[in-house]
């Protein structure tokens, strides 16, 4: 139990349906873990349990040693330290790009307006969008919106980042620009859990791959082992389907 993120015996039910079955894994500081598997296998639910967006009934999740489900935990404060990027970006459409980046810094971290703005500008530069600071999210392409969303999460100086299918809602030609930002982030040593079908990304930067099916973690192996010789049949089948083209 020395990881940045520890998941132990995690089970979750929606009514009578069990969506997570006794999931256990851990992510060390600076580690990049890709979670993959067929749709409906519980990948997104799993990472939403990490920052408490989804409640769970059994097991333990802790981030930086702080238990997520403990009623004594200040959940908003813990969430502020974990960045999250969503499939549908979820930028705030009524606020400008810059305001999207500064609002959480000012309201949650209590940073001054000027400091927040400078930080926001630096991060927009980092994702290559400083020219769009004054625009509204609706004026940007999907790829640009997702890069802004990553910058917004980074503006909070997170200790770890969660990506929930960050490229699934994007047109093919925009996927690369988002992946480039994520690769750079991984190389900078950010602790990351990435739910994705982008196996090229997994091969390139992931330290480990977690394969899920039916709410269970079927395989949890170093990247080279997972792509080299997956032990489970289900993972082999999944890989053969996803990699054949």
């Amino acid at each position, binding site marked *: 139990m020395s990881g940045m993120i520890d998941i132990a015996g995690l089970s979750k039910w929606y009514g009578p349906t069990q969506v997570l079955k006794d999931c256990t894994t851990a992510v060390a500081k600076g580690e990049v873990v890709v979670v993959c598997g067929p749709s409906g296998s519980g990948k997104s639910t799993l990472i*939403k349990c990490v920052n408490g*967006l989804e409640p769970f009934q059994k097991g333990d999740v802790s981030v930086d040693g702080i238990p997520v489900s403990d009623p004594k935990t200040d959940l908003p404060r813990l969430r502020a330290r974990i960045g999250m990027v969503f499939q549908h970006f979820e930028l705030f459409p009524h606020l400008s790009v810059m305001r999207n980046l500064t609002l959480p810094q000012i309201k949650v971290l209590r940073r001054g307006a000027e400091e927040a703005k400078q930080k926001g500008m630096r991060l927009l530069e980092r994702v290559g969008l400083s020219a769009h600071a004054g625009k509204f999210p609706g004026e940007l392409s999907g790829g640009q919106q997702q890069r802004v969303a990553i910058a917004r999460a980074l503006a909070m100086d997170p200790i770890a980042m969660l990506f929930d299918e960050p490229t699934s809602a994007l047109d093919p030609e925009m996927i690369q620009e988002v992946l480039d930002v994520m690769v750079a982030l991984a190389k900078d040593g950010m602790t990351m859990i990435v739910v994705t079908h982008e196996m090229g990304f997994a091969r390139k930067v992931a330290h480990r791959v977690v394969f899920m099916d039916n709410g269970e973690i079927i395989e949890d192996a170093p990247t080279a082992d997972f792509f080299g010789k997956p032990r489970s049949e289900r993972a082999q089948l999944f890989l053969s389907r996803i990699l054949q083209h």
Partner: protein
Amino acid sequence: MFSNFDFEVIVRSLPYLFYTGMAFTLLLTALATIIGIIVGTMLALMRLSGTTLLTLPATAYVNLMRSVPFVLMIFWFYFLVPYIGQWITFSVQPVKVGAFASCLVTFTLFEAAFFCEIMRAGIQSIPRGQVAAAQALGMTYPAVMGYVVLPQAFRNMVPVLLTQTIVLFQDTSLVYVISVTDFLGAASKVAQRDGRLVEMYTFAACVYFVISFAASRAAQVLQRRLAVIR
């Protein structure tokens, strides 16, 4: 055919019609709208809270208000509020409330029920992902609502809120039942006094039409300017 009509009466009574009558109508409309939206939004948040302790009273309140004729409410409040005041303040006599305060309380409480339903629809129109994103950034419930959900809900609902306000503007004429002089009341008094019923009521109708029509056009323009690009 207009030889029997005296349109001069309108010009002569303009100051009274507008400074006394219309001033009351607009003040009541504005105050009831502003306070009604604030109270209505709080009711909407109660209804959506998921806590029975909050949901139940808010739902009961809204349903009660929407099931009672407005004129009855105005009457009832006018006669009841002084006694409620007496009961609260333990005074010997019923508290003197005054017609305007009584109207304001009635209109606000009544409109709050309608604004509640509008704001509830507006809040529900915001995708759940927006709430999740705000929470993931560490925002607490008041921050999520105050900075992310309500501003968007409000913008989405501006046209409906303004339509409701226009209805409210017309409904203010119902204060005649407790003998308060609003715009229609003022026109009516002049009409009776000078025996110029047709002129005054026609003029009043025109004024209501012009204001309501202009307001609904303004609502459309405002909607286009406030609309959130998705």
